[in-house]
């Protein structure tokens, strides 16, 4: 006796969150059944393995049918075939587009191209995430990217509108899209200690302050591309380290203000010029695409690592960065105050976030 056909269709589509997770994680039906058995479901419910198998198959089939709709979430809301309560629809979408930290760290900042897709095998092997799940996550990134890439308006809002994500998820995707578009390097060994959250935080600050959208809300791609003009202007900041007087003045102002307040004062005093050079040079180099990509590498190399090796506490870093950017306003010879603020406010936020073990 073999089951040729075995289906269950409810007027309200049944969604089993547990099975959904297994499906999203890319397990085959038999693996999912084994995992469910291991979770002790048979004991809890008194069901047989055959029942579990049939149930799992059924859910998988439903998810498979829903997948097409999940690719364009508004369709899920307006379709008539599956009657799903709104809270469940939201759950389906949110979970479908959720991603693994390990995975996103592997592809963050990479071009979402066929080439990267070919590397998914390696990523799967490295992270232990099933290839199927990697593909889904990669395709999700790419899909969202494609939809919003040439749109006007806020990136996160666009994503939210077209994919019906929660706030949190929409902002994460905005970061992913932003990183993919600007191809920031995140995979270097020295950046391994950074989490996706760290990058997403930085992305948000950069989108807010450094993109076209920060100055003009009526252009295409406004949140995706960095403001080229702004990057060009950043060259002007070079004077802060090129002009020796200005640099010395800057240093003495910062030291005066921080004397006695900083645990690592002497280290700061000794390193000031190096750090300042580092930060200003990063700005000046941003005219080249290659250097834009290496932004995070540079920040870590030029600022985070030196401070860390001198064991600066985070509080001291904060005090220093505040003072460092504020005192520039007292430099009479420096005329690019607005530019400096636009650069430094964001950078300071990023650096504080990046500064940890």
């Amino acid at each position, binding site marked *: *006796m*073999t*089951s*040729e*056909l*075995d*289906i*269950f*269709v*409810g*007027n*309200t*589509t*049944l969604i089993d969150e547990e099975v959904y997770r297994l499906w999203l994680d890319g397990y085959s039906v038999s693996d999912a059944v084994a995992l469910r058995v291991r979770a002790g479901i048979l004991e809890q*419910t*008194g*069901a*047989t393995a*055959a*029942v*579990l198998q*049939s*149930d799992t*198959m*059924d859910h998988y*089939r*439903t998810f*498979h*049918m829903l997948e097409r709709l999940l690719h*364009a979430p*508004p*369709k899920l*809301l*307006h*379709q*008539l*075939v*599956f*009657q799903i*309560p*709104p809270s469940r629809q939201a759950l389906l979408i949110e979970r479908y587009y959720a991603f693994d930290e390990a995975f996103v760290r592997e592809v963050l900042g990479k071009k979402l191209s066929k080439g990267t897709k070919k590397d998914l095998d390696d990523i799967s092997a490295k992270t232990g995430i099933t290839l199927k799940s990697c593909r889904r996550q990669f395709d999700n990134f790419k899909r969202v990217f494609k939809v919003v890439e040439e749109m006007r308006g806020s990136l996160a809002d666009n994503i939210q509108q077209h994919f019906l994500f929660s706030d949190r998820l929409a902002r994460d995707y905005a970061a992913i899209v932003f990183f993919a578009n600007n191809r920031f390097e995140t995979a270097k060994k020295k950046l391994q200690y950074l989490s996706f959250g760290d990058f997403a935080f930085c992305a948000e600050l950069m989108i807010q302050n450094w993109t076209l959208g920060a100055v003009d809300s009526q252009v295409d791609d406004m949140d995706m591309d960095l403001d080229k003009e702004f990057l060009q202007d950043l060259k002007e900041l070079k004077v802060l380290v090129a002009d020796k007087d200005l640099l010395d003045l800057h240093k003495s102002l910062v030291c005066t203000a921080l004397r006695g307040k900083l645990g690592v004062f002497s280290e700061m005093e000794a390193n000031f010029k190096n750090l300042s050079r580092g930060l200003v040079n990063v700005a000046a180099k941003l005219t080249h695409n290659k250097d834009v990509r290496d932004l995070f590498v540079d920040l870590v190399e030029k600022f985070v690592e030196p401070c860390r090796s001198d064991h600066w506490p985070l509080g001291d870093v904060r005090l220093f960065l505040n003072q460092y950017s504020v005192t520039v306003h007292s430099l009479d010879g420096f005329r690019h105050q607005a530019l400096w603020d636009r650069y430094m406010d964001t950078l300071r936020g990023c650096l504080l976030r990046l500064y940890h073990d």
Partner: protein
Amino acid sequence: MPGKLKVKIVAGRHLPVMDRASDLTDAFVEVKFGNTTFKTDVYLKSLNPQWNSEWFKFEVDDEDLQDEPLQITVLDHDTYSANDAIGKVYIDIDPLLYSEAATVISGWFPIYDTIHGIRGEINVVVKVDLFNDLNRFRQSSCGVKFFCTTSIPKCYRAVIIHGFVEELVVNEDPEYQWIDRIRTPRASNEARQRLISLMSGELQRKIGLKVLEMRGNAVVGYLQCFDLEGESGLVVRAIGTACTLDKLSSPAAFLPACNSPSKEMKESPLAHPPSHGCRSTHNSPIHTATGSRLTQNFSVSVPTLIYTGMGSGSAGKEGGPFKALLRQQTQSALEQREFPFFTLTAFPPGFLVHVGGVVSARSVKLLDRIHNPDEPETRDAWWAEIRQEIKSHAKALGCHAVVGYSESTSICEEVCILSASGTAAVLNPRFLQDGTVEGCLEQRIEENLPAGCGFCHIPYDELNMPFPAHLTYCYNCRKQKVPDVLFTTIDLPTDATVVGKGCLIQARLCRLKKKAQAEANATAISNLLPFMEYEVHTQLMNKLKLKGMNALFGLRIQITVGENMLMGLASATAVYLAALPMPGGIQIAGKTPSDGSYEQHISHMQKKISDTIAKNKELYEINPPEISEEIIGSPIPEPKQRSRLLRSQSESSDEVTELDLSHGKKDAFVLEIDDTDAMEDVHSLLTDVPPPSGFYSCNTEIMPGINNWTSEIQMFTSVRVIRLSSLNLTNQALNKNFNDLCENLLKSLYFKLRSMIPCCLCHVNFTVSLPEDELIQVTVTAVAITFDKNQALQTTKTHIEKSLQRASTDNEELLQFPLELCSDSLPSHPFPPAKAVTVEKASPMGEGNFRNRSAPPCANSTVGVVKMTPLSFIPGAKITKYLGIINMFFIRETTSLREEGGVSGFLHAFIAEVFAMVRAHVAALGGNAVVSYIMKQCVFMENPNKNQAQCLINVSGDAVIFVRESELEVISTQQPTANCQQSCAGGEVTT
């Protein structure tokens, strides 16, 4: 020109890409009604076209309005080649034809293609202007309301229940016409869908005419079925109960009458007994020749074998009486048409006086090509004959009417089994208009019958019993005789007193049959049938005893015929009726008592059985009040009720009755284990596992003993097909496979729905078919309803007392739920007031209340929620309006089965699509639920080698508007229509 149909095509969305080059579609729409067709403009390059057409107007006869469906076809314009069809929408405009139902059909309909399934949606508005020039001799029956619900619909009152109406129409099946060889599958499917749609329209109109003739205005319990007879044609037949219904306008005023139906004649439902002119003419030659009755209120007709084409010897033999019958029928054609049958399963209070037992009749026919579609006489005669048989069975049980009546067929190649069954009953003569009722009835009518047991009292003469039954005085009133068990096809009457809870029981049976042709095949089948009936009955009885219960409600026995086997599946809800005696245990008797080890084995089994009975009694809370024997004062000598079921050696049907009588003097229920078969049976008895804790199941409207439903419901359909290993199949192996199939299916359901615990599966409806040699298909439709556990745990008794108390004190409270109280079949717990009160008052902290509030219908969702349920009501809600009948037929075919996920993927998607189309139609009518939903047919055929599959599905139900009880206080006037339509129309979003 009595009607003007107006159609407007507004927009489309989610259309498929028809032009690969541009990834877009140039869509336009054809609107067709009858022979008139209109077209919209082509909306270029869009998947979300906005046609916003003018009003297309069709001026048509109301006859056509009833028969024809509105046909909307969406096409992709192609300049150089033929336009490609995207899909179609058929809209039944019948609901617009009577004033009380819907006034407009407006909403998004899925665009359906028989090859590709749903392909986007289209927004349509349909209106009808009816001109009121009423021609006396008209052929239409506009205005007659149809209900699938098998009780008086909730917001109506039955003024008169006229009785049985039936009709059938036949036609050639387009699939088997010569043209089918040259046309595409799509064209063929569409021709079929359209034809069936036309035929059902015609059928409904004809039934409506009959109702008007009877001076009724509605059909309740309308059941329409298709017989796909293959080569020989397509039959659409319907039965129903004609009524005169009154809309309850101010329900509160009506309430008192409801509570005391017997006091005021005018307010009470009346029944027209059909005239009984024909009953004297033949003491049914068929009946005496071949009929026989088995034990226990269970009248079975041995199928009468009649061939349409006379020829073989046996046909000649049996054709005689049939011919005679036919002659009689034509003589008294008028009277013949009226049968005292009612398709209702629940009744207004006081309507049902006594219940005799189940009557059923089957007959095996050989199909022959229908030569003249306009004269469907052969099929008519077949059914007339079966109905006649049912009627005479009922008479033998001392009953003048049959309630809970239904008809069905099973077809395999050219053989067809026609079945009819119902419950013989005596209806209250005080409600009958003319006094020409049989004498047997009058003597049975008591004054002041105590509530809750009257219907159990035997309607037949004690001294002249139609079958051997064991009578006692009623355990409730002690005045009248009752049988020891009662089988019925109806729902549990609302006033019945039940002890504990009920449960679903099933008898399952397979019998192998040799493959044969034509007459030989029919003979083989008709020879097998009585044995199957008998065994099904035995199983039911055994299982009933094992549950410690004494009555079956909602009994439905389905016999399915296949190439090489017959399947029997009986489902019913077992309960313990307080009026009936406590069932005796089951005793096992070995045939060779000398053998020691055998003896031991027997006693072991005996113990197991006794344990199971004890366990079941506990599980279902069956603890009837003890009654000492003296009080009963039974004239029947044996204190314990016994009945005897035979594993009769000579199962010649004629003898069964005699045999039964001769063995009637033993205590308890004896199972004689005389061969391995019997052993198997006992084992299979014990292998039925009860549902996991927190689950109950029944096949009636609701579960006796549970009355605190929450609003959480989930209707579902589950289909399974198994392939039997073909080698050396024996009856036993087959039985086991079938048994496992059903049990596993139930287990899967319990598992799937575990989040709804505590929960009851209601209206569990199993259908078996044998699509191919080695395939068995089981389809189940049911609804799972969560109930409030705290209240459920209260014992019935205290509940009764409480509710009675409350009912007497809280009269004002009751007025808030007047409709529910009037409606007969609602939570058929014996005490409807209890429900209203508990919902409102009991346990303010209760979960039920909480849940009701926490889960309001979601207003912000763009697609309105449409509930579907096979029940006639929606728990925790009140139906405020019936919008019309939903009766839809779909065909889906694929030539890329593997690509669509195999047979499971294909059927899963199709059923989901069918649900979607039903919901869309209901929403377009302005409704938010379908009640009395039923999937009448799900015919699935596959050809994996060719990568093909085809499925036909027929569903029906009543579209309604309901309002949550919790919202009822807030909304004084009904506005859901407006709300719903808003949400439907507003569901448009640019993507």
